[in-house]
């Protein structure tokens, strides 16, 4: 389980805001294994920026990212904080669109999308439009879209932060099930979060970042048995321990 999937070395990112340079990421060194990694950090420290660089839509100012994956360009699934479904496309079309872009024939893309939608219990909503769905369902489609392309790496940017607590909890469990059962073939999951509790509940390791410019302050192993019990003394102890690094 310690095989390295991604190595991030000396990663730095600066933004130019007018004439002022803002350093967002500072010398990030991190190895992502075959694991569920949570990234925890204060608001505005650069978590999303790091994910976007991992996804390849933003270029680092310095440093490298190496993917130790057979294919030359890793397939990446990205779950956005907001559902970001395209309003004029149906649910099925939304999920199928990335597949089509990956070169799969429209018909097959649709079949594949249908399969994944049924996996998350959205059969029957294929032809609905996003505005007809509840917030939780939309976020489920967002996750499905990321899984359907069979990502090697799944990136999640505060995926549960805009949901009501009950829906969020249900989706966390669902996502964990999918990850632990290995159905999706995902090699590593990287999830950005604000919540210590969420990180502890889901992740194998937690990387804690400092305020901007972000550096890795500490990486904590979470060796708690699954399914995790939030009330257990070990859980609470770790929570207190991590809290020290956040404040």
């Amino acid at each position: 389980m310690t095989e390295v999937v991604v190595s991030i070395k000396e990663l730095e990112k600066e933004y130019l805001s007018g004439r002022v340079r803002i350093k967002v990421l500072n010398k990030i060194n991190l190895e992502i294994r075959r694991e569920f990694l949570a990234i925890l950090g204060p608001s505005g420290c650069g978590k999303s920026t790091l994910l976007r660089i991992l996804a390849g839509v933003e270029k680092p100012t310095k440093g490298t990212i190496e993917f130790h994956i057979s294919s030359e360009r890793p397939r990446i699934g990205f779950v956005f904080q907001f559902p970001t479904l395209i309003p004029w496309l149906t649910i099925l079309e939304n999920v199928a669109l990335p597949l089509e872009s990956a070169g799969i024939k429209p018909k097959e893309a649709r079949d594949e999308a249908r399969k994944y939608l049924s996996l998350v219990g959205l059969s029957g909503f294929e032809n609905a439009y996003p505005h007809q769905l509840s917030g939780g369902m939309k976020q489920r489609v967002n996750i499905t879209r990321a899984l359907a392309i069979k990502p090697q790496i799944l990136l999640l940017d505060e995926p549960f932060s805009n949901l009501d607590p009950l829906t969020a909890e249900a989706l966390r469990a669902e996502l964990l099930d999918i990850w632990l059962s290995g159905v999706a073939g995902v090699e590593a999951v990287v999830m950005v979060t604000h919540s210590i509790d969420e990180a502890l509940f889901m992740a194998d390791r937690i990387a804690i970042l400092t305020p901007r410019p972000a550096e890795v302050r500490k990486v904590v192993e979470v060796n708690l048995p699954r399914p995790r019990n939030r009330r257990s003394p070990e859980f609470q102890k770790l929570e207190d321990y991590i809290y020290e690094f956040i404040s």
Partner: protein
Amino acid sequence: MDYGYLLTDLTYSLLRLLTAYTMSIVAALLIGIPMGRSKLLEATLYPLIDVLQSIPVLGFFPAVLLLVTKAVQPPLGAELASVILIFTGQAWNLILGVYSAVKAVPEDFLMMSAIYRFNLAARLFKIYIPTALLSIASNSIVSWAGGLFFLTACEVISLGSEEFRLRGIGADIVNLTAGGDFLGAYVGVALLTGVSLALYMLLWNPLVNAVSALAGGSAVSYPAVNIFRALSPHIFGRMPSPSNYVIYLLSTRNLDVVLSRINLRKLFKASTSRVLAIAAVLTTLTIACLVVFKNVNTLKVDLAGLPWFNATVGLLHSLFRVFTTILASFAFIAFAGFYAFEHGKVAKYILIQLGEVLSSMPAFLWWSIFSLAVENGLISPLLVSFLILFQGTAWYIFFNTPLAPPTEAERRLYEVAQIYRLGVFKRFSRIYLPSMMPRITAGLSAAWGGAWNSVIAAEYAQIGSKTIEFFGIGYLLNVATIGGDINATLFYALYLAIFIVIVNRTFWRWLFTQAFMKYRVVE
């Protein structure tokens, strides 16, 4: 040759523009603010301005000119008429801008002012006027351009045997072109274009930049020499700044907020009957005016004797031209906008410059620019005519589309496209174009109004020894005006206006509602 007088005349023209602009600002404050606060005023004035905005004022200019010159002694009469024409090119946009900005003031703010018992003056000076001024500043580019468009038309016009001519650069250019002095015409065009561009660079762009900086975000960044930005703390610093919500007023999210507040359906529904009522009142007023000014004898209207057939055939000819131009502008804006959107700065910069040059050209200028080539048969007048139409159409869509920054929700959609590596075609057809649809249709329906003004300039011109004619309603209007047939002029203008208003209230409204319902991006 001595073209020194062009400089003096340029000053006259600028003064005329400035006077009209000042009037427009006053009108925007006096009408826009109450309209945004009072349901009654909103329901009455919105449809009126909606109609006024969409009719081609150029067609009515001869009639207005006659009326005003009868009422006011020369030379003031003609001056007044020309300022009124420029005003109509500037004001509606500013008034509606202020109205929607005031309308978009968040409820929280109003509640706050109610809880702390702000009196009327406090509300006016601390909330509404700053809001209005910000809206005016950010709408000024479009308005100024709207006024410039009429610059040539308003300064010289011959009505039968009478010729009204004002001192102004617009009149000079028209005369020099008609007289075959192409060099002089070029000097005039260069002067006017140069000054327009300088105004953009030194005044309007920095103003908008300063305003959007004040609003807390560079909503649109215009290329400009930023002397204004350096000055802005002094100028704007003292303005009471409701900066925490102003971002709403400038970002395109504004559109959403406003549209969600304005119950379009209800407003439209209520407004149709009001439009009829207003039309009746206006007609009565016009007739009353004509009676007062003893123009009654020329107003012996013989309905059957009116050129119905000509008007209809002319309208169909022009409609075909307008339709083709709108399609062409749509295609151009869609592709160019997409290209600029994807390729960022340089392309966007070029597009913005192009848009500003286009919008700052009085329609007639094209005839002058190509006068030599047309005179020598190097270029088809049809092409020039198309250019005039294209210019008068494209920039409306232009200011609505590629310049407007994407909203937060839209930006996220583009991020989806990026992360899932959609190909160019898919990015264009599935993301960019649909997300732009509400704005493009809004732009298209505005362009539709603009195109008809251009028709009047595009179908008739006097270039040196040649008279350029393309049959259509614009041509008919020109010929009627030159022949001094005020009845026919009014008839054609009314016929055209009614047609435009009907198409606006049926086709464009339907299209916009469809686009808005289906393609609006909200989270």
